[in-house]
């Protein structure tokens, strides 16, 4: 079994938001970026995986096991990092570690100490005295110290400066040398994923737009640039999203070859960034 996480037809309804038939799979040895604008359903999906909220329908399997039926076994193998600190602020780093460690059968104190040194974390410091970046590093140290095989991270880099973000991404890349592991990383900072992700799952308005290898996405989509005179009712329909200004237009397409045929040499075709794919798709409201 190479899939470490399988989500099938996952649904959850709130009064003003619905997660609709979410499907995706994460294979062993890969980092999956989970992108989408704020309120798209990223945190809800993660909460459902962690059984922090109850699903309405669907199936979540981690290492082939149902996440509810085998909750304890599944959570033994998951390391989690959330966007906020949810540890006891009044305790020191060491006290908090002493509380957390006994919950895991495979807790490895040597690994924890190694990360403490690597992250320059003072074990005697109270958690409330740590900066946001240091709190995140502490969470990451905990997540990596019990031989977890799936690391789930909910917006771990939001609110961090570029240096901290870069450090966290480097650590993730280095732990991924262990091919038994998988990382599920939700973020709206898509540049982070361009550096480290193998797969991208894009969610918008509670629906999965795509879940594909990053390279395939970059190959599939393209940014088309040209003069406004090229746009008419028919050509507009060919794009997933368009941004116009007085000089011309920029648009997202998932059919670059067709664009070349239609517009010939009158357009420029460029590789899109994940951010551009996200922005154009969200703005257009198109669910490809």
């Amino acid at each position, binding site marked *: 079994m190479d899939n470490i996480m399988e989500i099938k037809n996952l649904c959850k309804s709130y009064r003003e938001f619905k997660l609709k038939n979410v499907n995706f799979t994460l294979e062993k040895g890969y980092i999956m970026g989970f992108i989408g604008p704020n309120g798209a359903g990223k945190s809800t999906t993660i*909460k459902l995986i*962690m*059984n*922090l*909220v*109850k699903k309405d329908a669907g199936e979540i399997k981690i290492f082939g096991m149902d996440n509810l039926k085998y*909750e*304890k*076994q599944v*959570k*033994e193998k*998951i390391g*989690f990092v*959330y966007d*906020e*600190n*949810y*540890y*006891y*602020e*009044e*305790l020191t780093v060491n*006290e908090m570690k*002493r*509380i*957390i460690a*006994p*919950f*895991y*059968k495979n807790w490895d104190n040597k690994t924890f100490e190694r990360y403490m040194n690597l992250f320059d974390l003072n074990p005697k410091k109270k958690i409330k005295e740590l900066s946001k970046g240091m709190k995140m590093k502490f969470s990451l140290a905990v997540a990596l110290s019990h031989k977890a095989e799936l690391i789930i991270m909910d917006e771990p880099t939001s609110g961090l400066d570029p240096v901290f973000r870069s450090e966290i991404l480097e650590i993730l890349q280095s732990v991924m040398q262990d091919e038994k592991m998988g990382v599920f990383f939700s973020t709206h900072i898509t540049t982070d994923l361009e550096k480290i992700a193998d797969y991208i799952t894009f969610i918008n308005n509670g629906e999965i737009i795509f879940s594909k290898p990053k390279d395939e996405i970059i190959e599939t989509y393209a940014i088309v640039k040209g003069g406004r005179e090229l746009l008419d009712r028919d050509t507009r329909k060919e794009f997933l999203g368009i941004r116009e200004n007085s000089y011309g237009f920029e648009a997202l397409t998932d059919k670059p070859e067709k664009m070349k045929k239609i517009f010939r040499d009158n357009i420029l075709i460029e590789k899109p960034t994940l951010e551009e794919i996200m922005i154009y798709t969200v703005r257009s409201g198109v669910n490809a």
Partner: protein
Amino acid sequence: MLNLILKDILIQKKSLFIGFVYSLFVFLIFKTNTFPQENGKFIFGAVSIAYIFATYSIEYDEKNNCHWILNSLPLRRKEIVLAKYISLVIYNVIGISMMLITGRILSIIGFNLGNYVVDLKSILYVFQSTFLAFSFFYPIYFKISYSKTRYINTIVYLTVVFLPSFFDFLFKNMEGISNLKFLFEMTLNKWDITQQSMLLAFIIAFTVISVFISIRNYSEKNF
């Protein structure tokens, strides 16, 4: 589950100090006849200290939103619920021990604490009071967040602690209810094995029902 109970003690080292100060306060401020029960001060102090510990453990969890962490650890929700009930036993032991130790220290250094002998009935009274109060409160707490239920906790505590005083006041000021008054004093101050067993059985049954409701409520909770 033992880890969860230890966690609740570890996160509130401050409460040990607060409990000690509180026990001093109870012994030095209240008069012997403030409460209708024999050993009223002892019972009030021990119940209050246990209440402080139980309430602070909830408040620390809420303040730091630690339910996210607890529910992400390899734990089942029912273990989190059961740990809160089992912790109550420890909080009672802490409350009783603090009152005993402080009382002993005050006696040694010369304070007159009146006729003060802690017996099994007083100790049972402490356990019964806290389990009655929290068996009522926990199912509500595990359903709704603490910030919305804080006042219910306070009301339940005050009711359990001061209800005997209220009845005492009532009986002293009302004629023609001597049978009820007799029963009240029996319950409060006489050791009747049948009556005690019935009361104990009722509180155990109430606690068991409360545990089941709390587990159901917490299992269905969304964070």
